[in-house]
Each structure stands twice: as C-alpha cells, then as structure tokens.
C-alpha cells in the first residue's frame, strides 16, 4: 500500500479524500493503465489475432456445430447445477452458523473457507485422493472422469461463498420476524420459504452469481477430474490453443466467454450493491445457544453436509500424501527434494516449486496491493462513473479465460517497449490481475465504513489533513490492507490457469508442479503431488488464518 498511502494523503481542508490533483490522478490513472496494459491489451491482441486467422470453426459454428454446442450446453448446465447444489448444501449451514452459538463454531467457520482459498487443482487433487481412497473409480460406483466428480468439486470449492455471504447477511436479520411468523401458524418450512427466503434474496442472488461465475469458467477442476465428455468453454479454449494450435477457434470461444462474463459480472455487481442497501433494519439477533437435544440434532444435520464435504477431501489429501509402499510415512515429502523421482515430468526437484510459489506470490501481492489499494481509493473518493468502471472492470480478470490471459501475455508483451516474454515478472503480473478484485473488495468497505464525523472531529481538534489521514483513515485502511494482502497471497499461491501458460518448465509453481505430477501415471508421482498439495494447503491456511484475524468486523463481503 506504499504508493496508495502517499496518494491518499489529503492536502486540502476538506477531510474527505485526497485533494491533491496528483494524488487524485494517480488513484484513477494507475489502476486504469495497469488494467489497460496488462488486461485489455493482451486480451484484445489475442482475440484480434485469433479471430483474424483461419481455423476449424467460425462464429456460426458456435451455434450449429454439434460438438461446440454440446460444450456450451455442458458449461451452462454444469454451472447452473453446481450453483444450485452449492446453495442447497450451504444454506442450512449458513443458517446454523448465523443463528446458533456452539463449541467449535470458529473451527467450522475457518474449515469451510479453506477449500475456497485453495487452488482448484488442490481440490481436484483432494477429490482424486478421495476417489482413490475408497476405490470409487473401479467399483460399482464410478466417480473418476464423471460429471458427478466435477459437481462435487464445485460444491466443495464454492460452499464457502454461500456460507459466508448468505450467513453473514442472515445474522443481520431480526429473528423475531421469524418467530412472529411461527406464532401466526407458519411451520418451520413455511417460515423459511415465506419469510427467510424473500428477505435473504439479495444475498442469495449475489452469492449465487459469484458461484455461477466460478463454475462457468471452471478450468483446473475440469482438467483434473473431467473426462473427454466433460469439457467447459474454458477447457476447450485450452484444448484448441494448446493441443490443436487452432487459435481462431480458441479466440472465438474466448470472446464468447468474455461477453457472457461481462454481462454476468455487471449483473452481480448491481445485485451486490443491493445487499449493502437492504441491511440493517430491525434488531440484530445474537446467536442463540442450542438448548434442546432436538435443536442440537437439527443444527448438526444442517452443518453435516458442508463439514463432511469439506473435511473429508482435505483429510484424505493428508492421508494420501502419507501413503508409501507398505504403510505410511514421510517418503513422499522427502522425495520432493530429489530430482530423479520426478524427472520424467519435472526438470527440477519439486521442492523448488515451493520456493518459486512463495517468491511469485510475494511479488504478486505487492503489485495487487498497490494497484488494488489505489483503485479502492478511486472507487471510494472518486467520481461515481469512474468508480463504477473500475468496480466492474477489475472483476473481469476473474471471469476471463486463463488461456486468453496467458496466451495474451505471451503474444502481446513480447516486443519493445514491453518485452517481458522471458521475464519471470509475467507470472506475478497475471496473478495480481486475479488478486486485485479481492483487494478492492476488502479495502473499499473498510474505507467506506469510516465515519466522516470522525474526520471532522479530528479536524476540529486541530489535526492537519495529513494527521487526520494518519490517525483516522490509515489504521482502518492498514487493517483492511493486511487482510487483503493475505487474501492476495493465498490467491496467487493457488492460481493455476494463467500461470500454466507463463511458467517456464524449469520454474514451476506448486499448482503447476502438482498438475504435471498428476498428469503422469504412477503411484509415486501421485503421492508427491499429494504432498505438494498438503504443503500448499498449509501455506494457504496460514494466510487464511491471518485473514480471519484481520477481517473487518461488520463486513458482509467475502
């Protein structure tokens, strides 16, 4: 936040926002330039080149070619079904966490969020491990390479969004309104349908929009768990671009996906605004202790699907990483340091991936904090039109095809003045693009939560604008920024899609190394991948715990 801090220092007499023209310009210009150079330009380039070339398919094929149509159809329906399943699993847990107090609640809350912060590759790996453990790929129930495995992974990955966004909102709703309905003769179920659902609608729609977006552009999960018949637009872009070198079709699919995502992001942003507007009437109910055994049983049943779905794969991941020939041990972890064991698929000992990951994640976090912090300033203090453009624009990288982004970087940034093709900085830059939306979402509500009267009070007490900033705005911003830093760190640690195009063979990050290890047959390689996943999970959990520690108290956001 180094630059952001200087830029946000006020110089005028009005305590709200920076008055210096340089500061105001920097807040708007830096994020816009970053977005233009590292997102719009590469994406436009790849789309332009791709669409200009001749390929197997043209635009009409999107709607006529049977195979492409089935990809579009699968992408859509798996996203819809994944979202609905996630909602069904997450809603009861959201209610239990919002309404009740019980021992272990903090652990459940933290546990639920872990998969969301873990890269999709790890979730995929965890489900692989689960399938492995229970022998589900060759028994009567087959999960491996099925749609079920994909849906399951999406639920596990996204359930945190439902639990956190909807649960946070639910906790703000007055529970006496529910009790009134009950006293008027409504059964538990009717209270839920007639009273809770309508009141929760803004939170549910916003959360579902996010989940839908993640599932719609799912890549890592599809690549790891999907078979030939489970392809999303995203994974098809990858297949056309990488395996068939048909850039025209890849670009076509990319453009289509980007258009769909822009529409959905705009809708989600609008819906999310409504969340903020609708909160806060009536009394906020304090979570109640579970009193009767029936109530306890009901709460346990509400939490069970979420907890089991989240805990089981994580536990099996740990277990699989400890499996060695003839028992359990740390061989897989020890093997990470050797070059030979994985030489068929990796040029370096896998442990180097950990170092690479930590390094790139640190740089990506710094970039994300500077650009995201400035953007947050522009959104809070700047003109409404600018704020809206940044708000929606900075969300787009989340929903943009990783292939488009990765290839765009390689093609667009390979000639002077910006020749970065061989530079390792490409990876943190791409990861920062994904982390920035989260930084913005954490810092903006914190800055907005500062009561202007506090600034006025400080000014009246004789504080100069600089000191007002330092004593009023900065402590709040710094708290949010540290939470944002941990989030950005976790996200770039786990980023898989774009990184998979930019990582040099001799410098893989953890998710890349995992993917390579898993793509080759052999129990030893698989064991090492699991060990890497556990290390990554531990690193992310560390970052997540820091997020939990610094999370702004009243925020309803992620």
């Amino acid at each position, binding site marked *: 936040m180094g630059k952001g801090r200087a830029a946000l220092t006020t110089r005028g007499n009005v305590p709200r926002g920076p008055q210096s023209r340089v500061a105001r310009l920097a807040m708007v210009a830096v994020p816009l330039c970053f977005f233009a150079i590292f997102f719009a330009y590469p994406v436009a380039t790849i789309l332009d080149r791709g669409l200009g070339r001749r390929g197997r398919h043209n635009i009409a094929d999107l709607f006529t070619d049977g195979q492409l149509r089935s990809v579009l159809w699968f992408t859509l329906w798996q996203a819809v079904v994944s979202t609905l399943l996630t909602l069904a699993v997450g809603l009861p847990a959201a209610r239990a966490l919002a309404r009740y107090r019980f021992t272990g609640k903090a652990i459940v809350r933290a546990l639920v969020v872990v998969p969301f912060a873990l890269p999709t590759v790890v979730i995929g790996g965890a489900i692989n491990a689960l399938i492995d453990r229970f022998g589900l790929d060759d028994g009567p129930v087959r999960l491996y390479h099925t749609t079920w495995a994909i849906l399951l992974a999406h639920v596990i990955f996204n359930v945190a969004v439902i639990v956190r966004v909807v649960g946070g909102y639910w906790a703000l709703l007055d529970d006496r309104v529910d009790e*009134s*309905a009950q*006293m*008027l*003769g409504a*059964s538990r179920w009717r209270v839920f349908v007639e009273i809770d659902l309508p009141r929760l609608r803004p939170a549910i729609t916003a959360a579902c929009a996010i989940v839908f977006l993640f599932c719609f552009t799912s890549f890592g999960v599809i690549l790891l768990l999907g078979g030939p018949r489970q392809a999303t637009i995203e994974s098809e872009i990858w297949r056309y671009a990488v395996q068939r070198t048909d850039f025209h079709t890849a670009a076509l699919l990319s453009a289509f996906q980007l258009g769909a995502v822009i529409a959905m992001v705009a809708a989600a942003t609008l819906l999310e605004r409504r969340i903020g507007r609708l909160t806060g009437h009536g009394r906020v109910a304090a979570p109640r202790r579970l*009193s009767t055994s029936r109530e306890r049983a009901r709460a346990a049943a509400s939490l069970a699907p979420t907890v089991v779905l989240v805990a089981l794969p994580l536990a099996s991941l740990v277990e699989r990483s400890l499996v060695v020939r003839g028992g359990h041990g740390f061989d897989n972890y020890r093997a990470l340091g050797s070059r030979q064991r994985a030489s068929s698929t990796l040029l370096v000992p896998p442990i180097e991936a950990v170092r690479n990951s930590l390094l790139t994640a640190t740089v990506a976090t710094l970039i994300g904090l500077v650009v995201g912090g400035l953007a947050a300033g522009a959104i809070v203090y700047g003109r409404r039109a600018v704020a809206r453009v940044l708000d929606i624009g900075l969300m787009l990288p989340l929903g943009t095809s990783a292939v488009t982004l990765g290839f765009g970087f390689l093609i667009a940034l390979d000639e002077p003045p910006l020749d970065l093709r061989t530079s390792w900085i490409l990876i943190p830059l791409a990861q920062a693009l994904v982390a920035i939306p989260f930084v913005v979402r954490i810092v903006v509500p914190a800055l907005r939560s500062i009561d202007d009267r506090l600034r006025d009070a400080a000014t009246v007490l004789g504080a100069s604008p600089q000191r007002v900033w330092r004593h009023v705005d900065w402590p709040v911003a710094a708290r949010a920024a540290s939470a944002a830093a941990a989030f950005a760190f976790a996200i770039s640690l786990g980023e898989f899609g774009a990184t998979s195009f930019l990582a040099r063979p001799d410098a893989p990050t953890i998710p890349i190394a995992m993917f390579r290890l898993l793509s080759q047959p052999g129990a030893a390689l698989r064991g090492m991948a699991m060990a890497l996943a556990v290390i990554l999970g531990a690193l992310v959990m560390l970052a997540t715990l820091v997020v939990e520690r610094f999370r702004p108290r009243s925020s309803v956001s992620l």
Partner: protein
Amino acid sequence: MSAAGLEVETLRVGYDGKIALDGIDLAVRSKEIVSILGPSGCGKSTLLRAVAGLLRPDTGTVRWDGRDVTGAAPHTRGFGLMFQDHALFPHRSVGENIEFGLRMQQQPVDQRRRRVTEMLELVGLAAMGDRAIGTLSGGEAQRVALARSLAPAPQLLMLDEPFGSLDRGLRERLTTEVGELLRRVGVTAIHVTHDQDEAFAIADRVVVMHAGHIERIDTPLAIWRDPRTEFVARFLGHDNIVELPDRGRTLVRSDAIRIDETASTTDDGATLTGTVLAQRFHGGRYVTRATTSLGELVVDHARAIDRGTVIAIIIDPELLAPISS
C-alpha cells in the same frame, strides 16, 4: 385438574448456566388480561417465550384448557405473540402482514380479505392495507402488529413490551386504546412490561416478577395498596419505607402522607416535623424531599416551599401497609 385458560406449573428454565425461571406457577383465566411486571432480566420475556413454545422449559408444564402443550411446536398452539419492535414482515404490505396468519389457517380468499379489512378498521388504519411497512410511523407499525396478531383470532394473545419503543404520549394513548380493544375483542391476554402505569392501565391482575420467580399476583389496586415486600413496593414507585417503633418496617404510600403548612411544627403523635431538602416540579405538584426523625421522606405538595423550611408532615395511620422482610 382441568380448567379454561392457561395453566403454567412449576416451570423452570436455565439459560447459559443461570436460572432464568425458577418454579413458576401461574393461571390465567379465559378472557382475563394479566400483566407481567418486572425489571429487565427478571425472566418475564423468558416466561412468555416458554408459554409461546419458542423456548423449551427444563421442567414444568404449560396447559391450555387442560390440554398439555408443553412439547407442542409454536405454530400449532394457536397463540399469538406481539413483539416490542413489531417484527413486521418487511417484504410484505400492511394488508399482507395482517393476512399472513389467515393464510396459514388456509382460510378462503374472500374470507381473508374481509377479515383484513375488519382488522384494519379495528385498529384505526382503514384503507392503509396497501402501504409498505417501511413507510409506517412507530404508532402505525404498532397497530399493524396488533392487527396481525389478532387477525387469526388466537386463543391467547401475548404482548411483549408492546409499547416500549414508542414515545411517552403515544404510549399512554395506545395503552388505554389497546386495553379497551382487547376487552372488546374478548381475548385472553398476557402482557409483559417494566412500566407499572402500563400494567395498571391494562391488567385485570398483575404478576410482579423478580429474579426468575413470581413475587406477587393480585389486582392492580391490591398490589399498589399493599405491596407486602420491599422489592414490589420500590418497583411500583413507592418512596417511603420506614421503620416504625410499634409496627416495624412499614410503607407510607403517597396517599397516606401530606404536608400541612397550617399545622404546628412540634413533633406529636399525629404530625411529624421535617426540613425541606429539595423540591422538584412535577406537572402541577411539587415532589418534596424532607428529612425527618424517620429518615428521608418524599411527599407531594401543591405549592413551592423554600429549602430549609421546617414543615409539619401528617401521616394517616389507617393507610399504612406493613412490609415483610
């Protein structure tokens, strides 16, 4: 034992390791209005929630017309409950709020519509059925909440601090109005409040609660005249509890004590000498604090008296009430 109305027997509720209700016995007859009066935290709302079924008691029974409903779900009891902060459904109109309970009873549409109109007229909000909840004033919201809880014709209506969130003038007006309305409708009602004036204005009988148990059940007048315990006396706003040599601890009610500016200021059997400490003007009367040989006493008087003036205080021995320790 089977009787019409509500019977609560040896009800006990523990909450977070503390005892919220300890052995409550209470009977409310059909069409009777009972006020439960007590300071915050005395367990009065907990008692209401236990009767409503929103809270499961540890031990004890709740019976309605002789039928045990202790384990019944709240929505099957046919009781109504109205909260202090109204708890209206924010996503439904005034009319839809009132209609909700009727829909739950699966009444036909035209019957529901008639009943909603009838209820709106009853609470003086005719033609406001289409209004959004957010546009209502505090008093209007209160009336809607009342209409909503009365619409399904509950066997027992419970009101939890119904006027707590209103300003004083409105509260007094609504208290009278609601009391009359409840009697006109002829509903059995339990009303919870921490305000003795409100309880006295509405109730046939008042239940005074203290620290999870019932201190006293009686008519408003009987309780006011003879509170019996110091807690009840203090809670009802009585100021003068003194130690009399021949009677022991005694309550001197405000109607039993007066200042006589014409009487001589010598201490004899009938009068008491005091020195004015302070006076507070309280709309038409002066609340006067004076020191006497019995301790500090509070006496209402019609005129202002200078501080330090020696006055004669007359106590009517017929109206004294003993206080048990």
